[in-house]
């Protein structure tokens, strides 16, 4: 009969593990940052070209006429520099009160919309991408949100689409 004896502590070999190796693959990716958590590391094809990340944008607020929203609800920074003061766009585009506005999120996890679209009667669509690090809704980082009973098709994001 074989008797199993416990080894003395001095003879045991410690099993050293790093903190990182205790993480799951998903946790290791998440530790790289928010974008990596969403998409993982960029991958390359056989020719060494970067493979695009999957598209992630989702609809947020439905299209409504600017004039149907309360005055001041859409902050001036959404249309002042890019439209009203912009000599390079058509005269109709410089009158945002006639535009249709809607919003999207660049990713479903966004706390508030960060993609806004202003569509002029002439068909031109003006895009605003909110990329700051403020708190959505703050005076310096406005992200207006609204609801409506609109059930039609979602507008095109450019007249070239």
């Amino acid at each position, binding site marked *: 009969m074989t008797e199993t004896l416990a080894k003395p502590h001095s003879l045991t070999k410690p099993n050293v593990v790093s903190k990182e190796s205790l993480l799951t693959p998903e946790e290791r990716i998440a530790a790289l940052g928010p974008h990596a958590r969403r998409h993982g*590391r960029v991958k390359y094809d056989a020719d060494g070209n*970067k493979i695009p990340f999957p598209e992630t944008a989702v609809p947020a607020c439905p299209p409504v006429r600017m004039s149907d929203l309360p005055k001041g609800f859409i902050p001036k920074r959404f249309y002042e520099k890019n439209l009203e003061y912009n000599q*390079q766009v058509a005269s109709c585009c410089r009158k945002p009160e006639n535009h249709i506005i809607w919003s999207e999120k660049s990713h479903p996890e966004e706390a508030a919309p960060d993609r806004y679209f202003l569509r002029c009667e002439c068909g031109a669509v003006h895009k605003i*991408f*909110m990329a700051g690090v403020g708190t959505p809704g*703050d005076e310096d980082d406005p992200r207006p949100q609204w609801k409506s009973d609109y059930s039609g098709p979602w507008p095109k994001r450019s007249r070239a689409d």
Partner: protein
Amino acid sequence: MATYTKYENGIQAMLAGQIIAYGTTDAWLVAITTDAPDVAADDELADATQISSNNGYPGSNDTANSGTRSGATVTVACADVVWTASGGNLGSSTTGRYFPIYDDTSTTDKLIAYHDYGTTFTVATGETMTWNTGASLLTAA
């Protein structure tokens, strides 16, 4: 906020003094690119693929960045950047998607971070794209 994603080499460059965030010493520019950023490998603007420099896209735009300190936190604010397409799609592109920010003052245009629009986009003639960072592009503490 759109996801602010740092380039790993950009952090090193900032702490090595190649990218200056405080004050207005260095000019930070924002570009429009088409290929997926590799945050582990990309280091300079040349590592990304920009849309063409035409039809209202000059090749990147000054953000008028300015870094200020309050207590132990430095905040970098930027002005809105507006691109207006004329004579064709902005940058002759239908596949713009990423907005990398880089230090134009650094020797090799070091990449700092980027924003992902979430889909590709087209800016047709007479249309505009506005990159708006609100109160701040980034804070460091």
